[in-house]
């Protein structure tokens, strides 16, 4: 596992700037074009319903037909069940669960079935499907529309968990997720959906982290929107003479221990950042493994940054205080450097 890339080199000179919405749309398009077994389903995903509430699947049903791109009733259990059945039946479905809080309705299908069927059948029935979902605080949508629950799925053997931090990764990880023989939960960040960035159209391997910025004093490990925040903080701190290495996990399960440990072995200090509630979040596992593996090397305990222990609040000042912000991350980095 040494093919970690520091920066992604453009594959050709067709690098275009696009939003994550466009990048995921393109990834779905390219995957459907490359493989007739790829299907898309979910609420509103077909064009008569405007190709998704955010337009992520726009154009797909018009091009590939409403047999392969199916708008569903509001029935998350049946959506995931249909995807599992189709996957077991030889297809590669990409199911959308509109927001991450709604996965709660389909947990049986995801946890007891999608994640377990390969093991329970002794390898006879793989479930090559992708569950796309979006989330993230910042839009004043309150307690039931912005949660990050990646820790639940990372704790569940049999399902992979991926969370891109930018349009290029969104494209590359989506292509890899669709090709993966196992179920992949694909977490999109809603507030950064429309921030354009270059997209190289390279497929990005699942299970590999990316060193988003090199540094020597401290390692920040993040995913999704928190990578953007961490990079901004790193840039700012470089002005203060602090060299921050930022690792974009890209895949949360199985996560790339090699890359993380190599970095912390070098810096001796680590901060794990996620938007999910801090307590019992994925930062705890990553901090524990770093501590176990690098005991003696580690100069300070691993710092963890996550949301407050509450539901996502509606009122703007509370919502801002709830989720990790650049200054929270900066403070944690300084604590790690103490």
């Amino acid at each position, binding site marked *: 596992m040494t093919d970690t890339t520091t920066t992604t080199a453009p594959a050709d000179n067709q690098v275009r700037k696009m939003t994550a919405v466009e990048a995921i749309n393109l990834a779905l398009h390219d995957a459907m074009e490359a493989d007739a077994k790829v299907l898309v389903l979910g609420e509103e995903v077909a064009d008569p319903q405007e190709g998704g509430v955010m337009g992520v699947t726009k154009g797909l049903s018009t091009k590939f037909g409403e047999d392969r791109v199916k708008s569903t*009733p*509001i029935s998350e259990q049946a959506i995931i069940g249909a995807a599992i059945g189709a996957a077991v039946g030889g297809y590669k479905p990409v199911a959308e669960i509109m927001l991450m*809080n709604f996965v709660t309705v389909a947990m049986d299908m995801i946890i007891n079935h999608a994640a377990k069927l390969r093991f329970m059948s002794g390898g006879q029935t793989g479930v090559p499907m992708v569950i796309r979902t979006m989330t993230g605080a910042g839009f004043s949508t*309150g307690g039931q529309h912005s949660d990050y629950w990646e820790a639940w799925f990372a704790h569940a053997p049999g399902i992979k968990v991926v969370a891109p931090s930018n349009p290029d990764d969104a494209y590359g990880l989506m292509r890899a997720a669709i090709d993966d023989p196992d179920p992949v939960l694909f977490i999109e960040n809603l507030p950064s959906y429309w921030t354009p960035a270059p997209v190289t159209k390279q497929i990005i391997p699942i299970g590999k982290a990316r060193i988003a910025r090199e540094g020597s004093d401290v390692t920040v490990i993040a995913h999704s929107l928190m990578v953007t925040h961490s990079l901004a903080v790193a840039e700012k701190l470089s002005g203060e003479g602090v060299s921050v290495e930022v690792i974009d996990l890209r895949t949360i399960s199985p996560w790339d221990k090699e890359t993380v440990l190599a970095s912390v072995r070098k810096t001796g200090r680590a901060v794990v950042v996620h938007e999910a509630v801090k307590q019992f979040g994925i930062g705890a596992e990553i901090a524990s493994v770093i501590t176990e593996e690098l005991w003696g090397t580690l100069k300070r305990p691993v710092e963890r940054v996550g949301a407050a222990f509450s539901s996502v609040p509606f*009122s703007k000042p*509370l919502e801002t205080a709830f989720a990790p912000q650049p200054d929270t991350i900066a403070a944690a980095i300084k604590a790690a450097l103490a």
Partner: protein
Amino acid sequence: MSNYPKPDPATLLEIYKKAALIKLNDERIIKQMMAGKLVMPYYSPRGQEIIPSAISVSLTDDDYICTIYRGIHDMLAKGFPLDELWAELAGRVTGTCKGKGGPMHLTCPDKGMMVTTGIVGSSMPIATGLGWAAKLDGKNRVSIANFGDGAANIGAFHESLNMAAVWKLPVIFVCQNNLYAEHTSVAYSRAIDKISDRAAGYGMPGVTVNGNDPDEMYGAAKVAIDRARAGEGPTLIEAMTFRFNGHLLGEAGHYMDKGLYAQAQKDDPMPILRARLIADGIANEDELAAIEADIDARIDVALAAAYDAPFPDVAELKRDVFAEEIA
């Protein structure tokens, strides 16, 4: 439905008052949002005013209701305090939920408004539980579960209607069928004509009524509520209606059938009811104008007070997670 009880003139005027409050309040919210003064996801109930207005005239503060993100009409019809509503929408600590809930979680237990949910279908299991509580209380309370046409396809609908029927609970399931679930027209999500036909599969009465017609809506609700109070169990009411402002305020609505939309506009229940009140001599133009002016004035007050109030302190993040404040 011809043998439904009909609202008397005073009740009809009462229905109009509630509906006018909903409509004027909706218009004001939209204005404030357009002006950038309110920032929130807003699911306008414009077009659905009659449904909760015609139901609520048969309810008391003791009766329970659960509703959904598109539920401000249900709330106002049942008497949600306007000041606390506006303060909540503005995210202020004087809001009914101290600004922590926002538009999707409006709650006012004093007036029986127990739960507003942003999860499709989830008003129903909880309203079923409130029906159980109501039955145990022995005070002839009823519990109203509001939900949309799209929600009738989710598992929680099935489990709730079945349980309420088996336990003979005083629950009225009100499906506000506005023909769309987000961008999905009903034709895409079910292979039957009437959602009310599902009631037979649970052993409860099911009716489809014109939810925009105060007579039908009042009658169907009254029969169901009386039945529930009498201990005879739940009813499913499918109330046909339309949402004029699309799903979420600001969307383009390209998915909507243009003919359907035009017809719905012609059928807008608000001018129709207003004209009828005048035609039937229940109220004259001046009286209605005075009612509307009074509502507008109350909104002015609520809105001004809301913006004047402080935001909640960040210490609120530690409160109400558990009953005891987190250390």
